[in-house]
């Protein structure tokens, strides 16, 4: 085995306050994001959910924000129960549900949503990613009101934790240079302190 897969460290952004709503990262020709994120425990959240998610938008100085209703395509297979469901969104003007977050208002604070995102960013202005490692486990072992099995048991019925994989593309006039990850969810506004997004990257020229 080679001692390296060729990726170089860009660095990490770690949330240290109670008010962060987005994390920005520069885009290279190729890269991998390691996302360890949760929603803030002080957010109201939803008693029915143990999770939130990250939406993402792309930016370049030449184009500004990519927000067109036909620019983004996103496909995902996911489940919070015992069968997989297919989801797609091609009209949101962003990548919806690009990464998963645990909801710290209902889930123990040492449990984190995890998503590994690998991307390619082409000169002819097509950003493409896959996110095929994805987890939002928790260990609350609490049975929510009106439910029969606890959070975290994935083959029962919602609301439980998530399994998923997906990918997407964004077409822009010029090559995007930044990605911004926005925390989102039901009554969610802020990242939990300790949330961390790291990037490895390659440049081809």
């Amino acid at each position, binding site marked *: 085995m*080679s001692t390296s*897969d060729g990726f170089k460290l860009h660095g990490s952004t770690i949330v240290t306050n109670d008010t962060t709503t987005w994390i920005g990262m520069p885009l290279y020709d190729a890269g991998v994001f390691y996302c360890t994120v949760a929603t803030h425990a002080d957010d109201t959240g939803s008693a029915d959910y143990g999770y939130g998610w990250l939406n993402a938008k792309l930016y370049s100085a030449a184009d500004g924000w990519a927000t067109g209703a036909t620019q983004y395509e996103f496909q995902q297979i996911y489940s919070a*129960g015992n069968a997989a469901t297919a989801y797609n969104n091609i009209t949101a003007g962003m990548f919806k549900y690009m990464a998963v977050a645990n909801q710290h208002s209902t889930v123990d604070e040492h449990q*984190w949503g995890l998503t590994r995102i690998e991307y390619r960013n082409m000169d002819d202005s097509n950003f493409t990613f896959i996110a095929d490692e994805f*987890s939002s486990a928790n260990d609350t072992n609490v049975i929510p009101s009106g439910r029969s099995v606890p959070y975290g048991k994935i083959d029962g019925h919602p609301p439980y934790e998530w399994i998923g994989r997906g990918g997407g593309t964004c077409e822009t006039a010029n090559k995007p240079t930044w990605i911004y990850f926005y925390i989102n969810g039901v009554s969610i506004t802020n990242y939990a302190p*300790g949330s961390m997004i790291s990037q490895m990257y*390659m440049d081809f020229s």
Partner: protein
Amino acid sequence: MPQHDSGELWYTGVEATSDTSHSAFSLGLSNAYHHTRFFFRGAWNYNYAYTFQPYIYFENNSSGSWDTAASYNLAMAYGSGSNNWIWGTNRDAYGRGPLINCHSAGTASWSPNIITWCEGTIWNHNAADKATSITYRAAVQNDSNQAGDGTYSDPRFCWGWINYREACITTSMFWGYSGINMVQGSRLDFVGVDLG
């Protein structure tokens, strides 16, 4: 492609040197890395027509033993042919990894189309305030070379996660099945994700 400094470095691995040398792989997790990528190839040296999963345990902060408390959650998607399923557990005394195919004749008839390949990430193992989790994807082949009852011949896929729910630094990982060996050449490697 131009060369770069690496942010991901191999740091340890283990390989079955015979068909009876290893029923499990135990590898230390380097505290120098926040996450570790892992790569597994292999098969069980066992006469059985189906796949089955390795048990996974973690060591809690150099405790000297595997944690066998009710500390493991998991979710797995798997399928065969046009069928697919989702399955999970909550607070088991062990984690369970990907589907690994069985091979009853060792390397004498081991061919590349009947090993399991699995790669994934062991997350946050050096963070004392975060649980350790594994995410992975795998491919499994099980063909007519299989012994046993011969009723199952489809290739399978699986992907999912294993969550070790303890908030601790996690120092070692166990991957195996007591009493059943892996075929010679089965191998597990760890690659550190250097976050600086």
